[in-house]
């Protein structure tokens, strides 16, 4: 398990070094060298995260044992999330090569990008609640700066809104940590879990739990805490929108929520899943209804992120193994197809300069790769077989029925149909139909953009294969075991 600290140190070193590329005077040379550097670092991260998949282990920082030190924990739940984070970030770096030519200050962009990745990797791997707060703060601060990277009116306004709401969320989270410390005098997850399990929980523990749920719900943009997302995600540059929507809200929001509430507090039955179910259904339905009325391509996608986060919350909120598996599976799938959709919107914006669906039309003929990949992604998100979105939604709906919540299944199906309607609109107005006169001279997106989009589209197809029994047993079953059985987590970290 000696490679675990590399997940944090490589992106950190990359961020610190790449910010020094500022001193290359020639803009062109600077762009090329930062591109090469960033993609190499991203590739290394991707390779090491493929290497750790399927394994589990503990790494103690500075040779300090529990409970006085900090440990990094790789368990079956964090493994897949780590892989998807580094995979999507590598693809987004490839996409940035051409897309970021509209902006200057490329080295700052990559520096912030790597800091965001470092923050997410750190918070996924950590086994300590205060350390989780610190790394969450790194990822958040980097994302504030990245949302406002264009520094135009919209971007600055969106990032200010995002920052205010988000800092309230982190403050709530820190207050929760303080409460937990006040009761248990411990910070690492294992000791906290043991201490909370051995005492009769006082009211303050539930207050802390509520603070965590509110804080992470703001971070993962569940309705009614979603106000910042539809502004912040469309305003960022397209690769960053893809990162924010597909990875950041999941690691910073949903992963941390499940990690703290289910694994640390051990509350995987009872009220907490119920709250998650309610928030999930609300976000699922209201998100998709709000998305239906949008004409701004990226804003529509942002509302769909809210809606799909609802599905994930619903899956986790069922509290049954099948539901949790559905939640994780949908989380991974959503990362792939939502980042693909945002990259599509970026490619369209790069060539046409518009995000308004009414001004598009017939782009599928002019940009065949973008058109085809966006078609695949739309079908994935709408849950059409054989694409990956179908399988995970199927699991969630089956889990709803099996745990005797047929109404929840009904809402999930309805939400899926509305999603389909909304993406038919996107395809109809954006990519099919007649080519508008203003778009006569539009060319296909540059090569690297095509590469990244095609990779993601292939992944959309391939990830249906995770349903095969071998992979299913390897990835999802142990993850659900860790989430739903606190004892397994304790055993993994403590050894026996």
């Amino acid at each position: 398990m000696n490679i675990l600290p590399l997940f944090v140190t490589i992106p950190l070193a990359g961020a610190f070094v790449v910010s020094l590329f500022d001193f290359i005077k020639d803009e062109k040379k600077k762009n090329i060298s930062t591109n090469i550097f960033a993609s190499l670092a991203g590739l290394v991260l991707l390779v090491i995260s493929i290497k750790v998949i399927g394994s589990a282990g503990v790494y103690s920082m500075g040779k300090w044992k529990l409970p006085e030190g900090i440990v990094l924990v790789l368990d079956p739940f964090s493994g897949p999330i780590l892989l998807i984070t580094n995979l999507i970030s590598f693809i987004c770096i490839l996409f940035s090569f051409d897309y970021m030519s509209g902006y200057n200050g490329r080295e700052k962009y990559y520096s912030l990008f790597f800091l965001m990745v470092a923050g997410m990797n750190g918070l996924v791997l950590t086994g300590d609640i205060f350390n989780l707060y610190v790394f969450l703060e790194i990822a958040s601060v980097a994302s504030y700066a990245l949302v406002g990277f264009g520094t135009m009116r919209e971007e600055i306004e969106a990032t200010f809104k995002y920052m205010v709401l988000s800092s309230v969320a982190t403050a709530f989270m820190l207050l929760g940590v303080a409460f937990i410390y006040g009761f248990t005098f411990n910070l690492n997850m294992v000791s906290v879990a043991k201490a909370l399990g051995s005492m009769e929980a006082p009211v303050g523990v539930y207050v802390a739990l509520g603070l965590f749920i509110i804080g992470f719900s703001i971070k993962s943009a569940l309705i009614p805490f979603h106000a910042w997302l539809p502004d912040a995600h469309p305003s960022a540059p397209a690769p960053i929108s893809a990162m924010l929507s597909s990875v950041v809200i999941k690691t910073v929001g949903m992963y941390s929520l499940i990690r703290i509430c289910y694994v640390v507090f051990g509350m995987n039955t009872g009220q907490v899943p119920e709250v998650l179910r309610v928030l999930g259904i609300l976000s699922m339905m209201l998100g998709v209804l709000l998305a239906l009325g949008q004409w701004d391509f990226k804003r529509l996608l942002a509302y769909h992120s809210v809606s799909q986060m609802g599905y994930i919350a619903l899956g986790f909120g069922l509290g049954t193994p099948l539901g949790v598996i559905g939640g994780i599976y949908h989380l991974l799938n959503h990362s792939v197809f939502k980042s693909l959709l945002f990259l599509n919107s970026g490619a369209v914006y790069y060539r046409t300069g518009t995000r308004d669906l009414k001004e598009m039309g017939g782009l599928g003929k002019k940009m065949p790769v973008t058109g085809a990949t966006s078609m695949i992604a739309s079908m994935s998100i709408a849950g059409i077989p054989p694409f990956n979105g179908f399988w995970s939604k199927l699991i969630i709906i089956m889990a709803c029925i099996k745990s005797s919540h047929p109404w929840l299944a009904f809402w999930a199906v309805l939400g899926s149909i509305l999603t389909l309607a909304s993406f038919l609109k996107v395809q109809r107005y954006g990519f099919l139909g007649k080519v508008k006169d203003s778009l006569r001279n539009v060319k296909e997106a540059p090569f690297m953009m095509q590469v990244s989009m095609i990779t993601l589209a292939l992944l959309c197809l391939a990830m249906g294969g995770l349903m095969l029994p071998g992979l299913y047993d390897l990835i999802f079953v142990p993850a659900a075991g860790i989430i739903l059985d606190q004892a397994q987590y304790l055993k993994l970290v403590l050894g026996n």
Partner: protein
Amino acid sequence: MNNEKGMSEIVKAITSLVAASIMVFGINITFYGHLTPGGGFAGGLILAFLFILYYLAYGGDEELAKLPFKVNHILDSAGAIGFLFIGTLGIHFGGRFLYNFMKGGKAFHLLSGGIIPLENIAICIKVGASIFLVFTVLAVFRREK
């Protein structure tokens, strides 16, 4: 408007008088962070204050804007890389990231803390450069407008 920039002659004189002692204080706070209250962060802030004091007293908005923030920027990154590097040395010497590999030495002496004073120095450089960088950026921005 008169040509004199910054504050009055008295402030300038006092600034140059106290500058040395502020510097010594900041360095002392950093080096002895593991024995007395303070540490790299406080020391770095104090050193940044020294430069801010100069800048406010002598009114160097224009000079600051011309000053390429190269040095600061390098120091900022170098401090962070230094901390990371010390942590990585721990892997080499002790098998664990951030392992304190230089333990030993008499208690209550400068070298008793192993890597702690080194980390303090790295943080001091990083924080001092960072805080002064913020002022530089704000000054440059005001100048450009």
